[in-house]
């Protein structure tokens, strides 16, 4: 007997399709498991047999995933003649779970910076949760620009098996966002002993002091699950730009804002004065190993 495969409907609003391409870059066997376990009913870029009309005719959707920011302004954005907001209002009522895939769907993200359209926002600010009678738990925000494919897979499989997941204050799964991008970074020892990166383009040194790295203030597990199975931005030498937080994108993302030579924001949960004291002490240790090239 065929088991019921939960239906996934993926819609796109104001987006660059980065989350779709992140999903397509998932670990191939994980992606295959996803395709075999779920009924990938509709995705505007991937499926060929079903149309948006077929989606509108569905009675029930198990998982509604949205990629991209939402607007009611048809002058700038429409999906098959419908405004994004109208379409989502219709489809969300049929859905058991609603997942905002990416920072744009969660908060408006980079697209909300387009000020000429003053009505660009995230999904949770668009839908009235009281009207969503079928919904089994609050709208889930998978933030990130883009989302890591594993976050999509883990969220879908967990909901399928356990029916519910715990969310943080910003409606993000705690299992993903409990820690910081900093955890697992290969540059952590430089951070501990306050050894700054000399400049871009080196394996050595921490990118927090000069290059704007937000690893210690950004909730994400990038450095624990790795991107494309092999690496992360901070491991490679690019500072974390805090793309999983509500305030992404900020200004001057590649430099550290400072007051009299001291980073004006300090790692999450630490008193600033205490942090500066520790920094002062750590800097008195001149650890030779950390000031040398790793490979001579």
């Amino acid at each position, binding site marked *: 007997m065929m088991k019921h495969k939960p239906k996934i409907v993926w819609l796109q609003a*104001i*987006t*660059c*399709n*980065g*989350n779709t*391409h*992140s999903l*397509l*870059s*998932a670990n*191939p066997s994980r*992606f*295959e498991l996803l*395709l075999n376990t779920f009924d*990938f009913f509709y995705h*505007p*870029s*991937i*499926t*060929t047999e079903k*149309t948006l009309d077929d989606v509108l005719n569905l009675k029930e959707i198990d998982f509604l995933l949205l990629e991209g920011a939402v607007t009611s302004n048809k*002058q*700038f*954005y*429409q*999906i*098959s003649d419908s405004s994004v907001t109208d379409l989502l209002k219709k489809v969300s009522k049929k859905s058991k779970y609603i997942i905002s895939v990416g920072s744009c769907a969660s908060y408006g993200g*980079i*697209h909300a*910076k*387009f000020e*000429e359209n003053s009505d660009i926002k995230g999904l949770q600010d668009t839908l009235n949760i009281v009207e969503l009678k079928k919904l089994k738990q609050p709208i889930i925000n998978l933030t990130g*620009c*883009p989302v890591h494919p594993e976050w999509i897979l883990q969220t879908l499989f967990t909901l399928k098996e356990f029916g519910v997941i715990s969310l943080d204050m910003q409606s993000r799964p705690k299992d993903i966002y409990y820690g910081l991008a900093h955890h697992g970074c290969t540059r952590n020892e430089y951070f501990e002993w306050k050894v700054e990166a000399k*400049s*871009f*383009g080196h*394996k050595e040194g921490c990118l927090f002091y000069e290059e704007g790295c937000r690893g210690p203030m950004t909730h994400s597990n*990038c450095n624990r699950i790795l*991107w*494309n*199975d*092999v*690496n*992360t*931005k901070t*491991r*490679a*030498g*690019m500072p974390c*730009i805090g*793309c999983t937080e509500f305030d992404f*994108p900020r*200004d*001057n*993302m*590649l*430099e550290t804002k400072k007051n009299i030579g001291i980073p004006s924001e300090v790692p999450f949960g630490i008193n600033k004065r205490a942090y500066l004291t520790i920094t002062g002490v750590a800097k008195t240790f001149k650890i030779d190993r950390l000031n040398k090239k790793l*490979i001579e």
Partner: protein
Amino acid sequence: MKTLNIIERIEGEAKLVCTWKENKISDAQIQFLNFRGFEYILNNKPALDALIYTPRICGICGQAHLKATAEALENIYKSINEPLYITDKAKLLREIGLNIEIIDSHIKWFYIFIMPDIAKLSKEQKYLKYEALKGESWRKGTYAASESIKALAVFAGQWPHTSYMIPGGVMSDPTLFDIITMQNYMDQTLHFLEKELIGTDIEKYFSFDSELDLDTLNATLSDFKNLCFENDLHILGKSYNSHITLSDTSLFESGRIEVKNRLLVDLSLIDEKDINTFKINEQKKENEYTWAKTALYNNKPYETGPLSRALISNRKLIKNIHKTYGDSVFTRVMARMDELINLVFITKKLIKQIDLSQESYIPAKIDLKDIESATSISTVEAARGSLLHKVTIENAIIKDYDVITPSVWNLGPGIGDKFGIAQKAIIGADSIEKAHIILRSFDVCSVCTTH
């Protein structure tokens, strides 16, 4: 008779309005109705933040935008006679990164976006393997794409949306083992191409000088060729046959071709027009029907992309196919696949050339903030064709940012009685399915077209 169709699976959607005469399309209008306003978003932002913003113009060709931004900002230094020194290592890591992104894009485009449609033209059982999501070949295509992009993540940290290039070089500092890992992933990609796409080894493929050579093989390219010839796709899809490539790389040469003559490119003759384009905060005029603008060179439309690049840099197999079939769907798609094969081959060579003892990044002597006002241009070969960025900054703040994407060249509206490139190619098709395939043969990216 007029018909209106919504076209999906083009990184967004478009509307195709066709006029029919005697069962053939006699006029076609391609409407892109969605606009995100990147050029507006970039205004008054810190210049270096553009390295974070522009890759997000497109989820599939972000590295092309990143390279264009990094080099446009480097050209700002050039414009004030203080050029930055970029090491060969950094230049190589940028070109390799971009190549890997194009490789990933071409594999996905072929197996996910065009083959399922072409295979559907036939009822033969053997083509079911190209069916979206379920088909064995479709799945192998996505598998190969996600494996090949790992070669980029090794030194760029991740894909999509990394900004590892910066004026002065690149942010990463790979080891010898990283280099060999990149080689390994490229070798796996090559193995996929030999086994699944071509059906023979690459040396034999490079000896091919006609599409007839494909007939001896049993792989995706021969299936593709048979399907094309059964459905007239070797005749359909012809446009002006004028081609342009704006920049040089290890594989491509800049230039343009018009009536068989190869000519040089002068960037100052490029113009972007918005006669048929919607305007922000203005009442819509009757002739305005799309957010796409029109890119012209010396007031004429030109096609850009893999076919143009293959012809301008004289790649034998495509040159010969083009001699017989012109700029048809078959030629255009073959050119993209031939480019894929050549890119994997050349990228392997480029990886080997990296001298790890060189610096990855050399900081500028002058702070961008100390440059009062300057304008510069950069050009990059992206998966879909030539990309141009033009930036004006004042004390490191962006005052104007103009992006002309490949899809603006290929998919922008025609002006007056002069059709746009894809518009002209669609005219003459005898079914809407074929019109879709013709449009798709340009590797349409809706988000890039309007940005």
